[in-house]
């Protein structure tokens, strides 16, 4: 991130224009209070441009992609494949390396299942032996994740370990919410076949040092899988720069529709991988005795694909590109710093995660002394402030940080400093109502 980029927060006029694109932000809730939406790490809202793109697809081009010889089928296929190009360009990828999935969870499972499906007889026939060996996983091999993973990048690897007899290991988290890289060389070893980790923690907001982990993984020949759900909507992400082998993210957290996610993978690896979900669309030839499969990305897109959502996601990429990702990052950084500063002035609040803005994204989790996050969230909701409470699908991380649950505020490009102030004002009611601060 350059210094020029950091100066690029949106002006008041620009913010107003952005907010005007998101109709839901102008509705009121809980008896007429304006909505202050600070839960974009769970899901973001969708601008008119995305909704219009989806509607236009259904109204003008709706048809089953990759099927039929009629004009609508051609147009739908073209729209779907154009969307793939747009998404690929957005993350610096080759078009054929982008696989559409129903969400990021499916994308991560797709990679995990490649390892266990590769064990079945005949699955890797015709694959270069050196590439096939990278997917060979069994007893004595190790899978490495981190203690700050969302369940979607944790449970699939636990299950893969169970199916294959491999051992699951993890990189720990420090008290201040950073990955503990001190023992990186002892956790990632010659036995490691895959390292799966998050780019940005959905709880702590920590931006992880991808290069350090990728360097170590490469040194031992392990594949790398990056959960980019919390980075792609907020930071400029380039898969080539990152140097990972796979990258997964969801559409709905980046102003795109629900029901679509993306798996990006290096083409030679995707090409070697056996399919995950099977059925229509993903085949090359089907006979009663057996089938052969299409090349990627079609091999991993069984069934009629979510073309309207893909078109919507491409519109979301265009929307973010028009905003400029460096300015989105800079804008959210200003909000994050304002919130961290406001919370620091309240001694009865403790931030769980990095307390300064360095290498930090706009998900800020905290606990209030003596008051359960559910109760905090309820008081905030009463003031129209929408936050997330609970363990945010990162239960082991919460256990590591010695908290049952946290309250999390998270930002997107449409949020404003005024909304940070609304949160802080509402937060001040919490200890008053519960009588913990006199």
């Amino acid at each position: 991130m350059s210094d020029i980029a950091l100066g690029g927060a949106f002006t008041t006029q620009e913010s107003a224009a952005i907010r005007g694109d998101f109709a839901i932000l102008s509705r009121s809730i809980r008896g007429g209070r304006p909505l202050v939406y600070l839960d974009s790490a769970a899901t973001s809202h969708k601008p008119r441009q995305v909704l219009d793109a989806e509607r236009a697809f259904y109204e003008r081009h709706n048809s089953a992609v990759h099927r039929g010889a009629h004009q609508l089928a051609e147009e739908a296929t073209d729209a779907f494949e154009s969307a793939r190009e747009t998404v690929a360009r957005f993350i610096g990828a080759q078009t054929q390396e982008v696989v559409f999935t129903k969400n990021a969870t499916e994308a991560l499972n797709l990679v995990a299942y490649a390892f266990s499906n590769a064990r079945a007889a005949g699955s890797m026939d015709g694959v270069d032996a050196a590439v096939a060996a990278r997917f060979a996983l069994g007893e004595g091999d190790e899978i490495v994740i981190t203690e700050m993973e969302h369940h979607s990048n944790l449970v699939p690897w636990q299950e893969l370990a169970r199916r294959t007899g491999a051992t699951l290991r993890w990189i720990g988290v420090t008290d201040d919410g950073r990955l503990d890289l001190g023992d990186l060389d002892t956790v990632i070893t010659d036995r490691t076949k895959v390292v799966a980790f998050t780019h940005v923690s959905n709880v702590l907001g920590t931006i992880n040092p991808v290069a350090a982990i990728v360097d170590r993984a490469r040194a031992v020949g392990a594949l790398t899988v990056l959960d980019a759900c919390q980075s792609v909507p907020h930071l400029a992400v380039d898969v080539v720069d990152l140097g990972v082998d796979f990258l997964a993210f969801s559409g709905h957290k980046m102003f795109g529709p629900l029901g679509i996610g993306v798996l990006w993978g290096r083409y030679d690896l995707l090409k070697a991988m056996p399919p995950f979900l099977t059925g229509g669309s993903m085949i090359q030839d089907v006979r009663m005795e057996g089938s052969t499969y299409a090349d990627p990305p079609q091999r991993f897109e069984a069934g009629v694909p979510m073309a309207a959502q893909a078109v919507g996601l491409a519109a979301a990429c265009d929307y973010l590109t028009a905003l400029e990702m460096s300015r989105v990052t800079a804008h959210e950084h200003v909000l994050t710093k304002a919130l961290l500063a406001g919370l620091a002035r309240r001694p009865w609040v403790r931030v769980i995660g990095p307390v300064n803005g360095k290498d930090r994204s706009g998900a800020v989790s905290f606990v209030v002394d003596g008051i359960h996050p559910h109760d905090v969230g309820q008081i905030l909701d009463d003031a129209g402030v929408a936050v997330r409470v609970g363990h945010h699908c990162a239960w082991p991380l919460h256990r590591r940080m010695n908290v049952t649950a946290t309250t999390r505020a998270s930002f997107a490009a449409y949020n404003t400093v005024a909304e940070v102030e609304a949160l802080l004002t509402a937060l001040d009611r919490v200890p008053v109502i519960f009588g913990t601060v006199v």
Partner: protein
Amino acid sequence: MDLYQEIILEHSKRPLHAGLREPFNAQVHHINPTCGDEVTLRVRLSGEGRSMVVADVSYDAVGCSISTASISVLTDEVIGHSVQEALSSFAAMRRMLTSKGADPGDEDEIGDGVAFAGVSKYPARVKCALLGWMAFTDALSQAGVDVSATPASTSVPSALSNTTTSNTTESS
């Protein structure tokens, strides 16, 4: 807001009958997977048949003010009462909590439980208020009480079905 009645705040700050005690007939551990709240709850029964009485309910709970206060009220309502009365209280409490604001609750049946009437307007919090009650009826079941023969067993709301359970049954 009508959620945090003074009675609820009072029970949550100073929960009644808290702590785990012996002897007990059954112990259960319930978790609310959406927020991580947990309760370990024990029941001790005395007497037999229709005269069976809830002699003690003891617990160790980590949770929000609603769940903590609800368990506190539960113990106050059922300890020393017959199992049949306890199950009736559960049924009344659940009826109120799942009424979406329509049922204000009957103080004769659930005592301080009526303070939770406002919870029924917040669907996400109903599970909090029922966590202890679900654990309690599960513990009764583990202790050999037929909870299916009571009105309490009718129509468990689907919102409650993902409460996870682990049980340990011990005889005192």
